[in-house]
């Protein structure tokens, strides 16, 4: 019986992994450039095969953070989670650029105990405290795999003139540092972004760029790119519109006791007229 359960679990895990791979998480702002003294912007947070198509599942709003142009954090308002999407609003009242993000990550350990039973740490939904590793993971754990991972989904909104403060990296996990301002993207101008892994240039990050509206074309027309030796990627936009950018990175330079680290990142950009 035990064997069956563990086999089932393996199948479920494999199934979950495939789902995560196929359905992309995204956060879509309905306006990114605003003028005036203040205003509201509404967002959808969901996952789906076709980017920005609300037809699969809602995104989790836990940990959703709004970083103001001054670098202070605010909460999103009017959060609603339905069957297919999570929606929320933000009230922009300060001139400059806001960053709206969900970030998670940390250490994760998987092993088999003396009886061959699979175990993991931290518990689902909890964040690992590296100091607890020694007590949480048994000394005799078999097939121990310790990974350091990060996940970030974000987007940007500017009221008035674009500003820089909210764009500063936290130097934790895989992050995008704009060289071209994310709310100053024009169809005729290529954009450059730099990727960091734990604050250092991330070389060889696999970057995918997809224009919204895939449902209305026969092919996704994904742009596949890779960051150069400085962690920089250059994007030439095809047309005005909303774009989803997804990035994945993996190396073996993890913090101990992890052996490998990985990061996934996604962002939504609006590309407007010159």
């Amino acid at each position, binding site marked *: 019986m035990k064997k069956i359960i563990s086999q089932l679990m393996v199948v479920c895990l494999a199934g979950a992994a495939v789902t995560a791979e196929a359905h992309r998480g995204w956060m879509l702002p309905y306006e990114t*450039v*605003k*003028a*005036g*003294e203040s*205003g509201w912007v509404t967002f959808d947070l969901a996952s789906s095969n076709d980017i920005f198509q609300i037809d699969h599942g809602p995104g989790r709003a836990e940990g959703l953070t709004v970083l103001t142009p001054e670098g202070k954090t605010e909460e999103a308002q009017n959060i609603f989670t339905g069957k297919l999407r999570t929606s929320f609003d933000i009230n922009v009242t300060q001139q400059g650029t806001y960053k709206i993000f969900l970030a998670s990550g940390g250490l994760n350990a998987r092993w088999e105990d003396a009886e061959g039973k699979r175990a993991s740490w931290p518990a689902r939904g909890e964040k690992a405290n590296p100091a607890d590793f020694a007590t949480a993971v048994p000394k005799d754990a078999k097939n121990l795999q310790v990974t350091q991972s990060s996940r970030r989904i974000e987007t940007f909104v500017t009221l*008035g*003139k*674009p500003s820089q403060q909210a764009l500063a990296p936290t130097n934790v996990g895989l992050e995008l540092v704009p060289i071209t301002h994310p709310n*100053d993207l*024009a169809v005729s101008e290529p954009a450059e972004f730099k990727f960091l892994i734990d604050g250092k240039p991330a070389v060889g990050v696999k970057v995918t760029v997809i224009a919204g509206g895939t449902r209305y074309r026969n092919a996704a027309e994904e742009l596949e790119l890779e960051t150069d030796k400085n962690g920089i990627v250059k994007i030439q936009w095809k047309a005005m519109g909303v774009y989803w950018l997804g990035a994945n990175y993996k190396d073996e330079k993890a913090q101990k006791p992890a052996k490998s680290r990985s990061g996934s990142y996604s962002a939504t950009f609006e590309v*407007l*007229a*010159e």
Partner: protein
Amino acid sequence: MLKKMMLVSLLVASPVLSAASLNIAVEVPKLTVAEYHAPYVAVWLESAAEGDKKTTKTLAVWYDTKMKDNGGHKWLKDMRQWWRRDGRDLQLPIDGVSGATKLSGVHNLSFTVGQVPLTELPKGDYVLYVEMSREVGGREVVKVPFTWPVKEAATHSQTGSTEVGAITLVLNP
């Protein structure tokens, strides 16, 4: 004596100075559409120089100035090109530059070189831009390139195809 001389030279010099001007006729076209709102209009100059040497000067912005709490500022960014080039760096209203939206027809603007808002216009190549954006309508930018200064009066014209009417620039030496 000195004062008198200065006065004389001022009197002699001033007509010459005030003659150096840019006259711009901006046509807001009459459109037969079901729902018409007067367009937001921006008129500005850009020097042809690149990088730090490039200068941008907004000469006129017409928008909804009547809404309370500067509510009409909300749509200034719809004049997308002007907004990126200069608009988002400005604090409106600006005396002698910003004003209410205009009815369809030809509106004449006159800018004396050396006077606000055209306090200086160094020798060089320029482009005059006129951008219009209309609520429940479209957006268009018309460019009129010119070289300054001129030895004699010169006229340059361009006409938009959808949202901007005829733009006529008269350069007076």
